[in-house]
């Protein structure tokens, strides 16, 4: 069988793998819905903004990585794809961190802002 037909149903190993993934997808979808529900409940709890912000960031990061690893198959694919995507993500996060640090309110003359 040529690589061009890698996903044909005739391969029982691939079929078994796909069935296994199918169950993972269902479980993951349920978890994503639950975590989103928790996030919404959290913002109405009388907790400090710092604790809430940290918790929301962790939960969002969890959802983010769950989707890219399982739904986007990064956990099953070659690691090159994972690192390729991570390079973009790291650059994006570094830009965010640099901008927030550079434009710190405490270091800007805020008399110019409404």
């Amino acid at each position: 069988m040529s690589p061009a037909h890698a996903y044909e149903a005739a391969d029982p190993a691939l079929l078994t793998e796909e069935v296994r993934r199918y169950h993972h997808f269902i479980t993951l979808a349920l978890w994503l819905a639950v975590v989103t529900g928790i996030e919404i409940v959290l913002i109405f709890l009388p907790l400090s903004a710092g604790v809430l912000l940290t918790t929301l960031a962790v939960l969002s990061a969890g959802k983010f990585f769950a989707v890219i690893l399982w739904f986007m198959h990064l956990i099953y694919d070659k690691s090159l794809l994972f690192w390729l995507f991570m390079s973009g993500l790291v650059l994006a996060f570094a830009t965010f961190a640099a901008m927030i640090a550079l434009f710190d309110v405490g270091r800007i003359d805020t008399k110019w802002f409404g």
Partner: protein
Amino acid sequence: MSDSAAHAHEAPTSTGIDHKKLIMWLFLASDCMFFGTLISTHLLYRKLYPTGFTDAEGHQRFVQRLFDIELTSFSTFILLMSSFLMALAVSAMHKGGQLKSFRRNVLGVIIFGLIFLGCQVYEFTHFYHQGLTIQNSVFGSTFYVLTGTHGTHVAIGVLWLVLLYFYSFTGRLGGHMGALDVEVAGLYWHFVDIVWIIIFTAVYLVEYLGPDGIWGNGLPPVPGLTP
């Protein structure tokens, strides 16, 4: 993360990865930086302009009083479930081109995508009538540009999936290449979903932290502020 059955059938390329898939991941990495700058800009200006915006009558308005968390949560749930259906559509193609299952799932993704876009159109219209325009405040500019860019991505994804849906009836969406085409479209759709996961937290949920949102903490009261 690489010991799967799929590795038994590597693509005949120097990397062992299909070119279409590799290009899509490169595009997604670049799009990640694109959205990264948009989200950074929004948060930065939200930090610098914590008082919200001024409506047409000249009243200062709180952003968190403008948001409808129920609607946004519904949109988020819809997009997450569409991602799940997309994963099932890709899985159906990998199981040997189960076109009926593919069409059923992809139709669900299209419908969910359209519901999400409908919610966004409703939200934008509501905000506009509340006095928030793209021109009257920095918050309006960054908010509409960020969520509008994401909405455009969703619209492109819906169009792509509609084309794939009708293409599947031609009989040419089969074999490895057909599965790959669906997988690449699926990657794009999932990316749209993960961007929304970040936007939902960074733009919407953070507005609800603390009595007036985290952006207002420690700032002096603004004269004439109407909650």
